[in-house]
């Protein structure tokens, strides 16, 4: 078969600017979805991870249920739930972007919560004892002693999960959000050149995720991970 790379040359602006970055008339954008999703998902993940470790059962059990539930269903299903039912519940019109962002944050937080939990549990008990004996409250202890150390331990697993989240943003195309994958689908319908197009966006995704893992490795080295285990 003949390869027709001209389809990439004439459409790369649409794919990269609109699809990847979300600059253009259609909103959306893979990066515009992934970055807030990572930040918000991490924040929610920390909260749920802490709840998971709580002493009081009425805080712990909902957190456990939350984590076990979202880890047992496909992300596609969660996206459909939010897509169909949030608007019914709230009566508000929601753009695909908001639905996708909410679904991702809620879903990924379950996985991030487990990483946070493992990270906190990996901090030696002596640290908690020392902090408590210095008179720090629970919140102060978490904020100044435990979490900083825990986060350092968590970085490899966190970045791995962030990379997973970044790849998962491609599912937003299923509900019509204009991300890199959806942009490729639209061009493919017009030009019928799926081999070149999907290979191109595969390379673009690869560049992004590979950069993320390289960054994580540098971050790990700079912060000096005491565990020393490779990701």
């Amino acid at each position, binding site marked *: 078969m003949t390869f027709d790379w001209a389809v990439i040359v004439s459409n790369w602006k649409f794919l990269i600017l609109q699809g990847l970055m979300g600059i253009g008339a259609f909103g959306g954008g893979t990066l515009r979805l992934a970055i807030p999703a990572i930040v918000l998902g991490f924040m929610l993940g920390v909260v749920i991870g802490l709840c998971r470790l709580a002493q009081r059962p009425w805080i712990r059990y909902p957190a456990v249920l939350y984590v076990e539930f979202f880890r047992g269903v496909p992300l*596609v299903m969660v996206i459909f739930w939010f897509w169909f039912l949030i608007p019914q519940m709230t009566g508000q019109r929601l753009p695909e972007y908001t639905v996708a962002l909410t679904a991702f944050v809620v879903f990924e937080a379950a996985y991030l919560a487990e990483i946070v939990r493992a990270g906190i549990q990996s901090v030696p008990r002596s640290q908690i004892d020392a902090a408590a004996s210095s008179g720090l409250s629970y919140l102060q202890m978490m904020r100044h002693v435990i979490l900083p150390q825990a986060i350092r331990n968590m970085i490899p697993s966190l970045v791995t999960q962030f990379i997973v989240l970044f790849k998962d943003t491609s599912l937003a195309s299923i509900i019509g959000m204009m991300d890199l994958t959806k942009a490729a689908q639209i061009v493919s319908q017009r030009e019928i050149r799926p081999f070149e197009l999907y290979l191109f966006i595969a390379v673009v995704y690869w560049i992004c995720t590979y950069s993320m893992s390289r960054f994580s490795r540098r971050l790990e080295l700079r912060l000096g991970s005491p565990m020393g285990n490779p990701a």
Partner: protein
Amino acid sequence: MIPVLFLGLSYDFRWSVLWTDGHGGWILEGVLTTLKLSALGWVIACLLGIVFGAMRTAPVRIIRWAGAAYVEFFRNVPLLVWLFFWYFGAPQILPQSAQEWFNRHGAEFWSAVLGLSVYHGARMAEVIRAGIQSIPRTQFEAAVSTGLSVVEAYRYVILPLALRLIIPPATNESLNLLKNSSLALTIGVAELTFMTRQIETYTAKAFEAFTAGTLIYLILCLGIAAVMGQVERSFQIPGLIARVGRAEH
């Protein structure tokens, strides 16, 4: 059929849509397709994972590099993109007659199997690599010093140990594969999520349809995790070094 006040909006719950009009058959068909897809994908992914995972720990640099290339390439691209690539893109390089044969013989299903197994094969390779690397080098040296070749050492000593160690993260990956099979709906495979959408478009009863699908996935995942936990317990070697990762699902 009684309209119910659901969170302030009136919604007409009708759970019977799940089994009337042949919809029950649809759900069953969807579950079977999901299981077939996942099982086939899993078998191939495990084979690929063992091969490439072992390659990444080989003493020969070229082999190590080849293993790393496979893993890094397939693992870092979203599965959805791979599905489109395998279904729409890759067959274009085959000759016309091969393409036609493929199209006549379940191209959608087999492209999905291919996509799932190659992608999860790369992820399995990482899990297996971590398992192999957590076995002390001394085991390998001892095996080789008793006269086994490198390949035999892997086959009879390293891999049996590694496979036991990795049961928890491997279970995790296997469940990911099961959940990811839902993406096959984008290339026309009538699996479980597709079927819940189908019921929803025919009856407009989204809540009932999605609840059914969600519950089935939960039952499958929790069930498999429980079974694998049992398997881990029955195969474990007492006194072996610490596990590679905790059991998650």
